[in-house]
Structures are given as C-alpha cells and as structure tokens.
C-alpha cells in the first residue's frame, strides 16, 4: 500500500527530534491533521497548579501550523517560521492536548495573493488583536482538546523547493 503525500508529511513530523522530545504524535483523517501531545511531567511549566508550560503549548501550535502548511502546499519540506504570535486564553491543564491548524492565506506557492483573515477556528472571546500583516501565508490554530486552551495566529512562509 503506497503512502499519500499527507501521510508522508504526518510521518515526517514524528521523526523530528524536537517533536519526539515533546512526545508529539500525528493523526491524519483525510486532509485533516490533529497533533496529539500526551501529557508528560516534563511539559509542566507551573508545578503548583499544575499547568503546561506556555512555551510548550506555543511549540505544539507552531509544529501543527508547519505540518498543516506542508500538507496544504503539497511539499515534502517543512516551511520556515517568519513570525508567530500566541494569545493565551487560560493555562493548559495537565492532560493530553490536541492541536489543529488552518491555512488562511497564501502567496506565491499556490497562485495569487489572498488576504489573510483571522481563522474561523479562533474560539469565541479570543483576543481580537489580529496581526495579519505578513502576506506570505498565515495559519490559525486552537487546541480544542481541553476546550480552547489557547488560540493563536502564526505566519509562516514555505521554503522554496
């Protein structure tokens, strides 16, 4: 049975050392990608509450955005991040956490320029401070697992192949 390009990308992310460090696993249903980050003690940033480290939540979102963008652009190579902005809605609970990404605007690699819009995935009440100023590509994500743990927009541009 031959692998689809989507499956290859999803498998590729699991081979990235840093994704393994976080324990990230990819689940692919059609074109829809969900990254799963099972809870582990080393992901904790606040041992009192306890809560996931904000940087780890940001890292999960970034990895998801990069993978989704690679799938959308039908590229075997991962894009490079130009900038990323994360708005924290609440602390991440010490449970398995999921992330999804949506490509909302692209330029150059699949035709013309489209305006970047804040993604529909953003939960109600998420910060309205949208920063769609990079015209190259933009991706929006939430982690719906623990009901909108975090929302963000990230803007990335794929590498030229």
């Amino acid at each position: 049975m031959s692998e689809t390009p989507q499956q290859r990308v999803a498998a590729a992310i699991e081979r990235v050392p840093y994704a393994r460090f976080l324990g990230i696993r990819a689940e692919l249903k059609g074109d829809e990608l969900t990254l799963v980050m099972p809870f582990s003690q080393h992901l904790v940033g606040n041992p009192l509450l306890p809560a996931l480290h904000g940087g780890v939540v940001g890292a999960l979102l970034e990895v998801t955005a990069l993978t989704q963008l690679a799938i959308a652009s039908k590229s075997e190579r991962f894009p490079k991040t130009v900038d990323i902005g994360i708005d924290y809605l609440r602390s991440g609970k010490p449970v398995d956490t999921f992330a999804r990404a949506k490509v909302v605007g692209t330029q150059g690699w699949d035709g013309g320029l489209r305006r970047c819009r804040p993604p529909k995935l953003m939960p109600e009440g998420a910060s309205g401070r949208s920063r769609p100023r990079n015209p190259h590509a933009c991706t929006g994500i939430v982690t719906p697992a623990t009901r909108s743990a975090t929302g963000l927009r990230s803007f990335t541009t794929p590498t030229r192949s």
Partner: protein
Amino acid sequence: MSDKPTSYASSDDPLQRVRAMIQFTPQAKALGMEVTRIEPARVWGLVPYREELIGDPETGVIAGGVITTFLDTLCGTAAVAAMEHPTTVATIDLRIDYMRPATPQKSVLAEAHCYKLGKSVAFVRAVAYDETPDNPIAHVAAAFMVNSNNGRKVGANLRTKKS
C-alpha cells in the same frame, strides 16, 4: 534543595532565586535552560545545543519551539526580576519574530528586559542570539499577568469542574 515550589521567593540573592525558579519548572529543566546573569528587570540566559532539540534534521537547526519556550521562561523571569516582592506570572501573549535560523552546535543565548511593570501586567522584550545581540536570531515581545496564582489554590488545574 527543597521540593516545595513555594520557596522560590525565599532566597535573598536574585540570581539564586531565579535559578531556583528554573529548577522548579520541569520544562525549563528538561530544556537544560540556565540563567547566567541578573540585574533589576533584566536577565541573561542560555539553552545549550542538544540533538534532542533539533527541529530540522537536514540542517541540524534547533526547533522554533525551543526558542519559544526558552524566551517565554526568560521573559517571565525578567518580569519577576523587576519586582520588589516577587510573585508568580503567567503569559498573556507572546509574539516572536525570527530573523535567521540558530547556528547548529551553538548555544542559544538571550537577554530579556522588563521595560514596564504594571500593577497587574508586565511587559517584556527579549532578543535571542548566538554570538552578539547585534546579530539576533529572534526578537520577542510578551505580556505577563502579575500575581497569576492569586486566589487559585495549589492543584487548581486538577479539579475537573470549575466551581
């Protein structure tokens, strides 16, 4: 060292205090993050290069997420370093601009400056580099909630239902 996280404000030496804070943060410890220098409202730190942290196996460049976590922690530390009476902080938002990839095999260094400490919000800027700050890897602007644990009990996140 005591295992009680509440003791992080107990030391009189600011560098000792923030180092203890890092030790109480499992993810910062897992990254191998160190704080090297501290001044009021300013901190310097580093993450040593490790193969485990690679984000691009082809080039050996460290993952963006490492820089996110490192700078988030360092910025939080800078906010605490600006306080007369240290308390807990939580990130409200964090924005990172990448200028170039980190050099493989080199530690990522960074300095963070809390340029405004308000009553409830602290604003922090940081720059990551591997040689000098003049050739930055990334710039960060972040906002932190001050006294974020206020009113929340230990283990608050372990409860299943909000009361």
